[in-house]
C-alpha cells in the first residue's frame, strides 16, 4: 500500500488521479473542468459536482489564489511524525483565481505574517518518483 507507516503519508495514485500528480511533477497545477458547464472540480471527482456530467477534462489553472482560511499547527497530530521537522505547519484553504478551492500549505512565511486574504502563488515539492505536491508562498 502506498503509505509510510510512520512519517508523511503518500497518496495512492490511480488512473483517475495520476494527471494531477504527474502535472505537479511538471510544476503545473491542473484540475478537472466540466466540458458541459465549465465548472472546475477539485479534489478529483467522478463527475461534475455542479451538473453531473462525466465529461471532465484536465486543464491547467492559474497558480494564483487568495487565502480563505488558515490554521498553524504547532504539534504533529494524527500519526504523521515526519511533519515534525516542518513545524509550525501553516495549513490553508486557498481560493484559486480560476474559481476552485483547495487545501495548501503556506511556506516561506512566518505564522504571524500569514493572514486571510493574503495573495499566494503555488510552487511544487516532489514527494516521489511520480508525484509532487503543490504548496503556496506569498505572491
Amino acid at each position, binding site marked *: 500500500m502506498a503509505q509510510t507507516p510512520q512519517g508523511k503519508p503518500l*497518496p495512492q495514485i490511480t488512473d483517475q*488521479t495520476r494527471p494531477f500528480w504527474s502535472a505537479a511533477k511538471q510544476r503545473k497545477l491542473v484540475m478537472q473542468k466540466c466540458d458541459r458547464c465549465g465548472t472546475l472540480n477539485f479534489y478529483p471527482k467522478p463527475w461534475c459536482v455542479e451538473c453531473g456530467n462525466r465529461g471532465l477534462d484536465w486543464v491547467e489553472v492559474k497558480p494564483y489564489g487568495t487565502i*480563505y*482560511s*488558515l490554521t498553524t*499547527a504547532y504539534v504533529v497530530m494524527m500519526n504523521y511524525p515526519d511533519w515534525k521537522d*516542518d513545524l509550525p505547519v501553516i*495549513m490553508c484553504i486557498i481560493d484559486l483565481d480560476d474559481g476552485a478551492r483547495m487545501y495548501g500549505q503556506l511556506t516561506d512565511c512566518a505564522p504571524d505574517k500569514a493572514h486571510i486574504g493574503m495573495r499566494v502563488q503555488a510552487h511544487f515539492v516532489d514527494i516521489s518518483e511520480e508525484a509532487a505536491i503543490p504548496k503556496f508562498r506569498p505572491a
Partner: protein
Amino acid sequence: MRAEVAIVGFGRTPYSRVKPGERIYTVDEYLAWAADLALAKAGMSKNDFDGQGLGVAHAEAAHTVNWSAAVAESLGISPRVLLRADQGGASASAMLIRAAAMIHAGIVDRVLVMGADTPLTIPSIAPGLPLSPERTRGVFWDFQGPFGVMGANAQFGLVHARYLHQHKNRIKPEHLGKIAVTTRYHASLNPGAIYRKPFTVEEYLSSRILSDPVRLLDCVPMVNGGLAYIVTSVETAKKLTDKPIYLLGFGEVSNYYHGSRNQPDITYTGFEQTVPEALKMAGVQHKDIDVFEPYDDYPMVVLIQMEDYGFCKKGEGGKFVEERDLTFKGDFPISTDGGQLSGGQPGGAIGGFMPIIEAVTQLRGEGGERQVKGASIAAASGFGGMTYARNNRSCVTMIFGSEA
C-alpha cells in the same frame, strides 16, 4: 411523524483512557455491555429483538465485511432489519430517524441501536502504528493527508479561523472558554464523565495552542466506550415504561453547502436547514426548548450550532454566550452531562449517541446533580464527518419531549 416513536431505554458503558494494567475491552464487548444496560433500563431481553430492528453505528475499529450482520451474530440476535450508519457523529441520530421511519411503516415495532469504538487501542489512531486501511483509501483522503492536513484539529481550526475573520469584533476567546468551562463544570457533576476537575476561563486561555486558533482545552478527548438506546412504537413504549421520551421532530441533511458548491461560506452548517424542519414537525418554538444538547467536539462547533439553530443570529454567538447562563441551573443549559468535550468521545463515530442519551436522561428527570428542573422539551444534535475544505458532512436535529 410527530411523536410516533419513543425511546424507552438507554445505556452508556464506563469510558476508558486505557491506563496501564486496565482490562481492555473490544468493540463487541462494549456493544454487548451498552446493550445490556439499555435492555435492563427498558425491562427487555435481547430476544425481544429477534424479528425486529438492530442498528449498528460504523466504528473505525470495524474492518469486517458485513459488519452489522457480524454484530448480530456475535450478540445472538436474529433481526428482521439491520441498520448500519456510517455518518460519523451523526450515525446515532441518523439511525433514530431510519428506525422511526421503519416503525412508522409497520416493518418493525422496535429497534435496538448501538455503537462502540476503541480509538485508543485500534491501529488507526494509536501512536506509532500504521493508519488503518480504511483511512488510506479514497481520493478524498489522498488530497488531505499528503498535503499536511493533520486531522480534525486542523479542519476545525480552519472553520474557527474563518469565523474569527468574519466576526472579529464580536467574538472573543473568552466566549469559547465559557463553553469549555461549562462542559467541565457539568462533567464534575456526572460520575460517568472522564475529565471531572473544573477549570477556569483563565486556565482555558492559557492552555497551549495546538492548531491556531484551536487550543488544547478546545479539543475533544478520545476514549474507548459504547452506548445504546432502544426506540419503539408509542404503543409498546407505554407498556414498557411510564416515562417514554417521544421523538417530536427531526431534520437531516448531508453534504450541505451555504452558497456556491465550489466556494461556500464554511462558517455555516446544515443545521440552518434541519432545525426549521425539526421544529415544524415538533410544533415547538425556540423558547419552548428547556435544554440543548449540541454536538460538542469543539466549543466553536457549539457556538456555530447556537447560531445555525436560530437561538441567535449569525455572528452573535459570542454575545449570546456572554449573556446566557449555560449551566443546568441557567437560562440556556447545554451539554448537561459534560458533553464530549469533558465526558469523552468514544471515537469519531460514536460520540453522537451522547446528546440523545443525555436529552432523554434530562427529560426523564434522571439527571441527578445536573438535572435541569422541569425539563420537558430538549433539542439534540448529530454532527458527522468533515468535508474537504468546508464544514461537516452530516447534520441531524432532533426534538424530544416528555409528553406526546
